[in-house]
């Protein structure tokens, strides 16, 4: 029998401790494929303050030991003058910013990731305070599956856009806890 693995064994940062990891809780209230507002653009009030522990924990979680993403002292002598986040660090930012409210459909249990597009304009560094503007981009049916894309612009504290993402998931047809399947 496979060893049981516990989420709690890996939680260490402040944000990881604060974040609700039960995606079933409140799932009935998540935005639905059928109901998304195609016109609204949401300027989120929640922010992600980037800390060294966030950057390091993410690098560890993707098995990347590049000193630029892990070692403050080594990164200071590097080309970026300090620690920077791995490009895919945009993922915990996205989930943190959409814990509640617009875009929370990304928490839908059973949703499948078909692929993503992300553009980068600036490095993300410790001390940056990121907020997002998100809204509907596209939704479609293909081979019996329901795809939904939101576009999100990520800004730092001086209102410079650091990244932009076109986030897409295939959403299941049911929202009941027992039947999140296709």
């Amino acid at each position: 029998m496979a060893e049981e693995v516990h989420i709690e064994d890996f939680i260490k940062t402040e944000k990881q401790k604060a974040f609700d990891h039960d995606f079933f809780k409140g799932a009935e209230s998540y935005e639905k494929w059928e109901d998304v507002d195609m016109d609204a653009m949401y300027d989120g009030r929640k922010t992600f303050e980037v800390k060294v522990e966030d950057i390091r924990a993410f690098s560890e979680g993707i098995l990347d030991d590049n000193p630029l993403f892990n070692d403050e002292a080594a990164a200071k002598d590097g080309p970026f003058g300090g620690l920077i986040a791995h490009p895919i660090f945009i993922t915990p930012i996205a989930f943190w910013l959409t814990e509640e409210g617009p875009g929370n459909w990304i928490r839908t249990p059973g949703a499948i990731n078909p692929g993503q597009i992300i553009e980068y304009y600036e490095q993300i560094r410790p001390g940056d305070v990121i907020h997002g503007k998100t809204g509907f981009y596209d939704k479609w049916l293909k081979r019996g599956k329901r795809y939904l894309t939101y576009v999100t612009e990520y800004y730092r504290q001086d209102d410079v856009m650091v990244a932009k993402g076109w986030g897409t998931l295939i959403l299941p047809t049911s929202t009941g806890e027992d039947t999140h399947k296709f």
Partner: protein
Amino acid sequence: MTSVTFDSVILDMKLPDVVRKVDQRVITQNAVASLDYNPIHVNPKWAKEVNLLGKGTTIAHGMCTFAFMTSVVTDWCYAGGGFITRLESKFIHPVRPGDTITCSGVVSEIHPRKKGQSFVVIELGAENQTGTKVAVAKARVRLPE
């Protein structure tokens, strides 16, 4: 390691592979790191109950595979000041606990532009231990001159 510059790159140049072994510990640690706790990744009991994707096992995050592929590029050029400006990915086949993923990259396009704006495109791929392609991606990378 020699810094990668725009002038040092040629078409079809192969980047060093990145190899990652995936098990449920890796998947769960990635869930915590990415704040993505979709039960398809972290709940083996639920995955079995719904017979997830016909095999009833959890699957790794697509974004984790994407991160592995991205690391092919960051390992190759970030120490010299390279900077990814665009990434796009497609996830083709589920990655499951027990898989070993090999990620590879090749320079497919070279875009000479004004100083400081030249970039290359890297075609990335990830396959599992049976040679099955699990994901593809493309990275646009600005390199120092």
